[in-house]
């Protein structure tokens, strides 16, 4: 069942009152060809005081399990097969017996402990290599009960860092447009593991093109709620928003710079759509493109220096690259007659994802900014659009499927493996955006 709460206060009460009843919100669906996954056991946390019903332990373990499954590196061993009693054994090296875990063919083991003192929670968790009988990483967290999901996400990020040398992407947010609640496209945010679903807009018009600036606090989107398309800038922490106003024309889409201070907006006037650099209130800093052609879907590199966008100046839609300081634009794509929706990899700064049409459906491609052949990642699996990168540059989320029945999919960039659908059936989620890591 689905229950929507209008009042934020009521929601907090509900979460606190009902923690432990919360059900998985996303369907885990492995749709890609499997490479070998490491077998991981995640023990319940040892209660050092205050978690007598194990509800906090369950919440932490549930979210951690979901995130690590989504990482594409692990399969989680069924907890029903665990031999050890977590409450009867310790969680640090030397305080438990690896022989309790090797019969399960566990390659890795997560154990931890927690103390609840009033509202305050102290939690520590460790990753062990079972064969090597070695501790690979460990983390201590302090906070209150509402912080438990983020403790799990941060630990998942630390585990990926220990295993691969690169911090994982789970302590972040997704935004997307969806008709999951009716006929009208509304903007939502949620965590990658499907928790914390938040409905940003609530108006029966058209709300589209969400994009984050920086750490997931600022969200820019386009809405027709005043009748005509306009850009709105929402502060997700204060839950306030303002309209970006410009005398240049109608603002049909835009992107925030990584520092959140400036906006590249697609501005339509007299049928021509050009890109302008604006401040947050809509005052023009500089024009970026000029002319009668279409210039849309701006994307800004992580260093805030480069701009990629879609333009039909050469006939059909193609990807162009220029400096955010102005100057000429260079055409980047030459294969395919419909290339659009560019997105910069946040790492390395030299890789761009975009969508390209083949035989009537779109695939997600990457191309190097320095040239070279485009790489098709999705290979006709479905019509795949709107690529957006994880903050660690390891994954792309895209929207895939037929118009009206679109889902979000998580894909590993290096292998092109589609790890999981992130949307339920018929939720029709489109236009994903992925924030940078969240702030403290």
């Amino acid at each position: 069942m689905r229950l929507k709460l209008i009042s934020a206060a009521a929601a907090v009460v509900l979460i606190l009152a009902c923690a432990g009843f919360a059900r998985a919100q996303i369907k885990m669906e492995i749709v890609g060809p499997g490479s070998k996954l490491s077998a991981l056991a995640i023990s319940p946390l040892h209660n050092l005081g205050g978690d007598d019903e194990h509800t906090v332990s369950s919440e932490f373990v549930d979210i951690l399990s979901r995130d690590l499954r989504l990482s594409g590196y692990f399969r989680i061993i069924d907890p029903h097969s665990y031999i050890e009693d977590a409450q009867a054994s310790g969680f640090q090296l030397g305080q438990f017996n690896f022989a309790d875990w090797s019969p399960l063919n566990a390659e890795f083991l997560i154990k931890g402990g927690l103390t609840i003192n009033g509202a305050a929670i102290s939690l520590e968790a460790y990753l062990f290599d079972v064969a090597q009988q070695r501790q690979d990483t460990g983390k201590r967290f302090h906070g209150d009960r509402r912080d438990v999901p983020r403790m799990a996400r941060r630990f998942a990020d630390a585990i990926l860092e220990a295993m691969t040398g690169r911090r994982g992407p789970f302590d972040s947010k997704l935004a997307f447009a969806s008709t999951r609640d009716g006929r009208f496209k509304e903007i939502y945010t949620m965590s990658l593991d499907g928790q914390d679903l938040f409905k940003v807009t609530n108006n029966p018009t058209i709300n589209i093109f969400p994009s984050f600036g920086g750490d997931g606090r600022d969200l820019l989107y386009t809405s027709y709620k005043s009748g005509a398309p306009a850009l709105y800038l929402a502060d997700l922490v204060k839950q306030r928003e303002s309209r970006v106003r410009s005398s240049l024309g109608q603002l049909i889409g835009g992107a925030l710079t990584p520092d959140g201070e400036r906006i590249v907006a697609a501005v339509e006037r007299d049928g021509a759509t050009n890109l302008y650099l604006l401040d947050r209130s809509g005052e023009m800093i500089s024009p970026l493109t000029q002319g009668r052609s279409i210039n849309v879907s701006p994307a800004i590199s992580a260093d805030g220096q480069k701009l990629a966008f879609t333009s039909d100046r050469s006939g059909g839609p193609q990807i162009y690259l220029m400096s955010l300081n102005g100057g000429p634009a260079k055409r980047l794509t030459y294969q395919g007659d419909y290339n659009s929706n560019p997105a910069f990899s946040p790492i390395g700064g030299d890789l761009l994802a975009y969508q390209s049409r083949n035989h009537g459906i779109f695939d997600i491609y990457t191309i190097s900014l320095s040239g070279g052949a485009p790489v098709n990642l999705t290979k006709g699996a479905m019509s795949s659009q709107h690529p957006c990168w994880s903050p660690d540059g390891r994954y792309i989320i895209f929207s895939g499927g037929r118009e009206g029945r679109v889902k979000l999919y998580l894909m590993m960039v290096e292998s092109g493996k589609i790890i999981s659908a992130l949307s339920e059936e018929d939720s029709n989620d489109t236009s994903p955006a992925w924030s940078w890591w969240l702030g403290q």
Partner: protein
Amino acid sequence: MTRVRLGRGGWVNSIGAPVVRIGAAAMLCAALALSGCASKQPATGAETGAGAGAPGLGEEGAGKSSLQQFQQGTLSPGTGGPLTDIHFDYDEFTIRAQDGEILRTDARWLEQHAANRVQVEGHCDERGSEEYNIALGAKRAQAAKEYLITLGVAGDRVSTISYGKELPLCTEHEESCWAQNRRAHFVVSK
């Protein structure tokens, strides 16, 4: 919804609502939690105003915007008042020869109803990206506007808006349907 006027800038509106999904086992628990909360706010409506910027209605010869029709569940071909829609080829915004006659008829009506204004809506089929299609719809609306101006309609009587691919008349995934959706629609107001 609260509206607070801040500083020199625009309106600053409060946004959003958390969406909590719970298992059936939590229903009683949810009801208890809700009953403890007195300050329930309305879910929708307060933020609307989709019609606010659209042409005024109710007069003779007046029509509703496609967005208003969509909101009311009445969006369908040929429900737009006295002027006739024109259509476009795929990824094109040039006025087709056969649609020139329609625009001449539309211009004559506007000539005879000098007190009326018209908003030209540009629409696209489902293919291609959303943002590109909003820009393409804007080109279609502008092309129709310029054609009407060439026929003698004053430019300040004609405004434009693009809905891109967001408000299709037909949702089948085939050309006969796409052809209906690639349109300029005319909404007349006083």
